[in-house]
C-alpha cells in the first residue's frame, strides 16, 4: 500500500537499457503534450503515433531491464510501471535533450513551437535509428529482438521528421526563422548523445550495444546532409555538456515527472 520510490540495480547493463528506455519514455511524454493541438490533423495522428511507438519500445526495454536488474540484485524483477513511474528524478537516465519544453525560447511555460518539436524529432529519430540498427546485433537476444522491431519504427520516424525539417527549413521566411531558432535552442544538448562513460564501455565490451560515441560519425553525416538540404546552419558547439544520461537533469524534468507520476504516487496500491 505504499508508493515510495524504487531504486533500480546500478549494474552497467541495466543502466544502459534504462538510458535508452528513459529516452523513449520522456520523448514520448513530451510528444503527448501535442495531442489534439497539432497544426494539421495528419500531424496530430503522426505525433500520437510516434509517441505510441516510443512507449512500446520503452515498455519492452523496461521489462527486460527489470529482469536483468533482478538477476543482479537477487530480488523480484521490477516491472515496467515501477521503473517508469516510481523512480526519483536522479534515477532517470534520459539525455537532457528529450526533456526540454517545446517552446521557442526554452521557457518552461511558453507556447509550444512546432519547429522545436520537429527538429528534436529528427535529431532523436536519427540517433535512435542508428542505435537500434546496432542493437539488432546485440549479444543479448532479447535486446536484439526489441531492436529488430524498433528499427523499422525508427526509420519511419526519421523519414517523417526529416521531411518536416525540409518543408519548414525550406518553406517560408517565417518557418526558416523558426527552424533556425530551434537549432540554436537545441544544439547545445546534442553532444551529450555521444558522451561515453563506463556504462558505454561495458556495453561495447560485452556486446550488449554500441558505445554512444560510436554513433557520432554516422549521425553527424546524416544530420549535416539534412541541415544543408533544409538550409539550416549548425552553430558552433561550446564546452557545455548536459548530463541527463548520468541522472543530473535540467529543471524541466521535475515538472514532467510530477505530472507523469501523479496517479501512481497518489493511489498507492492501485490497480489500473
Amino acid at each position: 500500500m505504499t508508493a515510495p520510490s524504487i531504486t533500480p540495480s546500478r549494474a552497467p547493463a541495466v543502466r544502459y537499457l534504462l538510458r535508452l528506455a528513459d529516452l523513449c519514455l520522456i520523448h514520448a511524454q513530451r510528444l503527448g503534450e501535442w495531442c489534439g493541438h497539432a497544426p494539421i490533423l495528419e500531424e496530430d495522428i503522426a505525433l500520437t503515433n510516434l509517441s505510441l511507438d516510443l512507449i512500446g519500445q520503452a515498455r519492452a526495454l523496461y521489462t527486460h531491464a527489470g529482469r536483468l536488474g533482478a538477476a543482479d540484485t537477487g530480488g523480484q524483477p521490477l516491472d515496467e510501471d515501477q521503473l517508469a513511474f516510481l523512480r526519483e528524478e536522479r534515477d532517470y537516465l534520459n539525455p537532457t535533450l528529450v526533456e526540454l519544453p517545446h517552446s521557442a525560447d526554452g521557457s518552461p511555460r511558453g507556447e509550444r513551437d512546432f519547429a522545436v518539436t520537429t527538429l528534436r524529432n529528427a535529431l532523436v529519430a536519427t540517433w535512435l535509428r542508428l542505435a537500434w540498427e546496432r542493437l539488432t546485433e546485440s549479444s543479448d537476444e532479447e535486446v536484439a529482438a526489441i531492436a529488430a522491431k524498433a528499427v523499422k519504427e525508427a526509420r519511419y520516424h526519421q523519414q517523417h521528421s526529416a521531411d518536416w525539417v525540409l518543408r519548414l527549413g525550406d518553406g517560408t521566411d517565417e518557418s526558416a526563422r523558426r527552424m533556425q531558432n530551434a537549432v540554436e535552442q537545441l544544439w547545445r544538448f546534442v553532444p551529450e548523445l555521444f558522451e561515453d562513460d563506463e556504462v558505454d564501455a561495458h556495453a561495447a565490451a560485452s556486446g550488449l550495444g554500441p558505445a554512444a560515441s560510436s554513433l557520432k560519425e554516422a549521425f553527424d553525416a546524416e544530420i549535416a546532409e539534412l541541415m544543408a538540404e533544409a538550409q539550416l546552419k549548425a552553430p558552433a558547439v561550446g564546452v557545455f555538456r548536459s548530463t541527463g544520461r548520468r541522472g543530473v537533469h535540467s529543471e524541466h524534468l521535475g515538472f514532467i515527472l510530477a505530472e507523469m507520476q501523479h496517479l501512481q504516487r497518489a493511489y498507492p496500491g492501485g490497480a489500473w
Partner: protein
Amino acid sequence: MHLEQRFEARIDDGGFIEAKDWMPEHYRKTLTRQISQHAHSEIVGMLPEGNWVTRAPTLKRKAILLAKIQDEGGHGLYLYAAAETLGTSRDQLLGALHSGKAKYSSIFNYPTLTWADVGVIGWLVDGAAIMNQVPLCRCSYAPYARAMVRICREESFHQRQGYDALLVMMQQGTPEQKAMVQDAVNRWWWPCLMMFGPPDAESVHSVQSMRWGIKRISNDDLRQKFVDATVQQAEVLGVTLPDPELKWNEQRGHWDFGTIDWDEFWRVVGGDGPCNRERLGMRVKAWNDGAWVREAALAHARKQATKQEAA
C-alpha cells in the same frame, strides 16, 4: 424530375448513392452537415482524452489511450474525406467549426476530471456513439456508410477497453479508486443519455432523414436500447447508475428511466456548458498557431514543383 425519381427509387430499393451520382441539393446539404458534425466530434473528442495522456497511470494504459486518440484522428480523416466527396473542402468545414457555425457532439463540452473519466468515456460515450452509428453503416450514402463500417469496428474496441479499465479498478482497485469510478459514472450518465438527441417529438431533421435512409432508428428508440444494454454492464461493474427511477418494466420489456434535464441539454448545445469555450478555443488556437506550418508546407511543395518542372 427524371433524376430525382431515379434517386428516390434507388433509396426506396435500399440501394446506395455514390459521390458521382445525382442527388437532391437538400440531401447533399443534410449529409454534409451530419458527416462534418461527426468529423468535428472526432477531433474535438481528442481533447478531453488528450487531457490525460501525460498522466495515464501505467504504460499500458498510456499506450491504449494514445492508440485510441490516434484512431479518433483517423476517424476524423475518413469523415472529412467522405464529406469532401459531397463538394465541401476540409478547410471550409473546419472554418465552419471554428466560427461556431458547425456543431460537434455536445458530450465533449464536459470535463474529464479523473482518470476514471477516461474509462467512462470509453464505456458510456463510445457505447452511446456506437448505438448511434451502427445504423449508419447502412446509410444510403455509400462513402459515409463505408467510413462508418470501419469506425464502428474501432469504436467497439474502444468501448471494450474503456470497460476493461473500469473493471480492473472496480475489481482489483482500492476503495479510493472505486469511489473515483462511481464519481465519474455519476457525472457522465445523464449527459450520455442526451447524446441521442432531443425526444422524437422535438427532433427537427428526423422525418426527412429517415425517409432518405440517413437515419434509421429514432432518438428515443436508440436511447432506450442504450439504457437497456448499459444497466446490466453497470451491474457487472459494480457501479450504481445515478437514477433512482431506473427500474425494469415487465410490460414494456424495457428499463424505465428518469426525466432528462433538457434545459441542460439545450444550454450546453447553445454554448453555455462547462467546457464549450475551452474546447472550441483550443481547436481555434491549434489552427491559428499552426498557420505558419501549413503555409510553409505549401510554399515548400510549390518550390519542389517548380524545381521538377525546371529539371
